[in-house]
């Protein structure tokens, strides 16, 4: 597997990646009135990174405005599906092979930040707090406060309706993805609760990912294995779950982070202090032959940090490399024994 970072198109961020020894890049797409990514933009972005020695391997999370009608099953979804297919064709042309997406109709949900080790700020989710202050929970990044009022749902969507909407989407985009050699990697719902404000959240358990994979069989239908989100699910063994999906070749992309606690309350922590046996996760990814990108995910906010969070990410990348080197040493010893 290849250690990656999500970067913006900037000299400072690419230099950081090169200096910490990362060669693979994930790009989060900015908002666009077109509702799709045209090939020129992707080619230009791919080349920007390539000219600095970096490979753009994953597009992560097109704006929800590109597919919100699809998630809610609203009129206009077929036009959005056609635009989504245009994006996939653009990716195929640019040689970008993985599209990570989520099916969180209301986005990520979190509640507050608490002080952790050395006073670092850590993201926390608490179900009671989320229910008591839903607007704040939906706007935990503060994007909407800054830019526009948050749009609360004016419809209810049941679990089965949400599954129908997801299957409707997959049945129509996966043929294009297959043609273009692009893989769709679904991210679990964070927080993995069953619904919020009457809108179902369906990718919230190991079994839900079994259902996702079985619902529309395709070599392009798979998972963005977010370790952190799986670790938030009560009773889930992250290492076993990597083996479960990885052995089927269904992990296309992964996020590396860890948490303490599970629903209804959990806190996102530094990679080295969570509940998961991190060296065992690396061993499991290797055992199943995962050769895709695994990127450093959210990190607690540390002292003297810059707007990109580079101190925190430097620590995470160092940690991921250390895990990889330790896993290699262990394998060599086992091989020699």
């Amino acid at each position, binding site marked *: 597997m290849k250690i990656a970072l999500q970067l913006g198109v900037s000299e400072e961020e690419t230099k950081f990646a*090169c*200096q910490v*020894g990362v060669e693979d890049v994930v790009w989060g797409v900015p908002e666009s009135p077109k509702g799709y990514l045209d090939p020129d933009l992707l080619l230009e972005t791919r080349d920007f990174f390539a000219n600095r020695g970096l490979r753009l391997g994953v597009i992560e999370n097109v704006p929800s405005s590109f597919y919100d009608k699809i998630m809610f099953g609203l009129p206009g979804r077929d036009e959005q599906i056609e635009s989504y297919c245009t994006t996939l064709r653009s990716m195929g042309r640019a040689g970008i092979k993985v599209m990570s997406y989520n099916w969180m109709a209301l986005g990520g949900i979190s509640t507050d930040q608490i002080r952790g080790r050395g006073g670092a700020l850590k993201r926390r989710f608490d179900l009671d707090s989320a229910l008591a202050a839903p607007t704040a929970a939906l706007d935990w990044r503060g994007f909407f406060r800054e830019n526009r009022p948050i749009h609360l749902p004016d419809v209810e969507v049941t679990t089965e309706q949400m599954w129908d909407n997801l299957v409707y989407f997959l049945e129509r985009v996966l043929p294009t993805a297959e043609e273009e050699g692009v893989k769709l990697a679904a991210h679990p719902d964070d927080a993995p609760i069953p619904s919020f404000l009457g809108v179902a959240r369906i990718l919230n358990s190991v079994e839900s990912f079994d259902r996702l994979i079985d619902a529309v069989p395709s070599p392009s239908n798979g998972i963005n294995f977010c370790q952190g989100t799986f670790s938030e699910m009560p009773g889930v063994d992250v290492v076993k779950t990597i083996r479960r999906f990885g052995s089927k070749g269904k992990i296309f992309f992964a996020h590396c982070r860890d948490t303490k606690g599970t629903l209804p309350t959990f806190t996102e922590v530094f990679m080295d202090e969570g509940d998961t046996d991190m060296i065992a996760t690396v061993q499991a990814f290797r055992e199943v032959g995962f050769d895709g990108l695994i990127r450093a995910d959210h990190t607690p906010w*540390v002292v003297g940090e810059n707007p990109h969070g580079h101190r925190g990410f*430097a620590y995470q990348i*160092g940690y991921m490399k*250390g895990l990889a*080197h*330790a896993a290699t*040493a262990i394998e060599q010893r086992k091989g020699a024994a």
Partner: protein
Amino acid sequence: MNLTLTVDAWIDENLMFAQQFSATHIIAETVPRETGARWDPPMLLALRNRVEKAGLTLLGLDRLPFSLDRTVAGSEGRDAEIRDVCRFVEVCGDAGVPLLGYTWMRSETGLASRTPTGRGQAFVASSAGSAHGKTSHNDPPWDRLAYFLERVLPIAEKTHVRMMYLPTDVFADLPPEHPRMDGVAEWKRLMQTVPSSCHGLEFRSSAVAATGADTIDEARLLSAMGKIFLITADNITMGSSTLSEAFIDEGIVNLPETLTACRTAGFDGPIRPGRQPGMTPDTEQGHKAMAMATGYLRALLQGLEAIP
């Protein structure tokens, strides 16, 4: 092993940084709190207290806070210098600071200048040398070293302070005529010159690799001798005739195997990341690069627990 950082412990941000990035122990840079201030017992106690208040343990001081120029040169005035050292060792003992580093270099020695030739154009220093070892010039002055150690080590034993020899930095800008102890054989001889349980070494992986020695073998041997007081984990890259600074995860030192060798041979002491290449932009102290190196070591230490 205890993950340790060397920082200016008078600065709160540095202690927060250490704790956030999983260090448990601190080796303080010997930076005086005020210009011209002397290191007296109240000052050292205050330092220890502020480190402990931050939830960390003050393990020691990275080096003596005054020069040994006359002692190194064997010139007039060395007895006064050595008396200062002895007094300072007593101060450390009284303050419960159990580790004190020393070098055998002139105090004005700097480092080779850095150029943006490292990974991602990080700034690195380079030095002539190869995997067969840096060129050593003159024999170390064993008589002067013995003179120093014979006077200091009894005080160290009495006050339970461990004196730790810091090998010459691979990239120290030393004049050719300067005697240097660049070889593992010399470090071992140093340990035998005045045998003492309070005298040991900093095992700096870059310095060992630069001698051409096998870091894994030497780690095993020196750990078994009980002479490693601190591991400094860093790395170097090797050209046909030059050695260059490197990030901790690249270069010729196999750190997982080196640390495993130390652990297997009984070492259970402090380990710290060594100096890292200069990232841009970063603070003068290189916090970003140090964060990466600390994360790397943290994972190695956790991962190597899985090795039987």
